[in-house]
C-alpha cells in the first residue's frame, strides 16, 4: 500500500485543454513535492509546498497543498504537447528526511 495515492493514473487530452492531477493520503506531511519525468530520464523537481493551504504557480502550472497537509493537486492550464510526461508527487513525513512517492500520473497532450 502506497502512502500517496495519485489519480488518475493516465490522462490524455487535446492541446489547449486544462487538466488536474490529484495526490491524496491519510498521513500528514511536512512538505510535498511535484516532479516531472520524461521517458528515459530521471524525475526533475517542479515545486515544493510546505504550508497548509499554500498555492504556488509556475507559468501555466498551479500547485495546491491541502489545508490539513494530507493532499495536493497540480492543475495545468491550456496544456501543450511539451507538458507530456509522468507527474509524480512525493512527500516527507514529519521528523523524516526521505521521500515517499506516489505511483505517478502519465499525461499525454495531443497536438
Amino acid at each position, binding site marked *: 500500500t*502506497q502512502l500517496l495515492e*495519485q489519480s488518475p*493514473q493516465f490522462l490524455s487530452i487535446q492541446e489547449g485543454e486544462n487538466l488536474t492531477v490529484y495526490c491524496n493520503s491519510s498521513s500528514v506531511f511536512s*512538505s510535498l*513535492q511535484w*516532479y516531472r519525468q520524461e521517458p*528515459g*530520464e*530521471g*524525475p*526533475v*523537481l517542479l515545486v*515544493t509546498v510546505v504550508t497548509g493551504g499554500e498555492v504556488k504557480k509556475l507559468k501555466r502550472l498551479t500547485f495546491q497543498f491541502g489545508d490539513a497537509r494530507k493532499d495536493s493537486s497540480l492543475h495545468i492550464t491550456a496544456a501543450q504537447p511539451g507538458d507530456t510526461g509522468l507527474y*509524480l508527487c*512525493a512527500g*516527507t513525513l514529519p521528523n523524516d*528526511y*526521505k*521521500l*515517499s*512517492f*506516489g*505511483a*505517478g500520473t502519465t499525461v499525454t497532450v495531443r497536438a
Partner: protein
Amino acid sequence: DVKVTQSSRYLVKRTGEKVFLECVQDMDHENMFWYRQDPGLGLRLIYFSYDVKMKEKGDIPEGYSVSREKKERFSLILESASTNQTSMYLCASSLTRGRTEAFFGQGTRLTVV
C-alpha cells in the same frame, strides 16, 4: 546546477551475477538514495545514506546492499542478480536532512536474463 551521474544508462546481466551500480553527485549533498521504478508502482526506496559509511534500509532492501565510502559516491550492489530485479534504477541526492528536494540521475535500465 546539481549533477547526479549514474555510471550506465543500460545494463544487461545474467542471473546470479554480482552487479554494481555507481552514482556520483558533485554538490556536496549529505543524503543519497537508491530507488527502483516499475510501471504502476512509482519509485520505491531501496537504501539511503545520510553520511559517509552510514546506510539505512528503505522499503525494499532484500537482495541489495550499498556502499558509501566517499561523500560523493553511493553504490548499489545486487549480490546475486535475479530476473525480478529487472527494473529502472534511479539514484538521487538531497542537501541535508532538512532539505528533502531530490536531484536525480538519468537512471540505469537493468535487464537480468
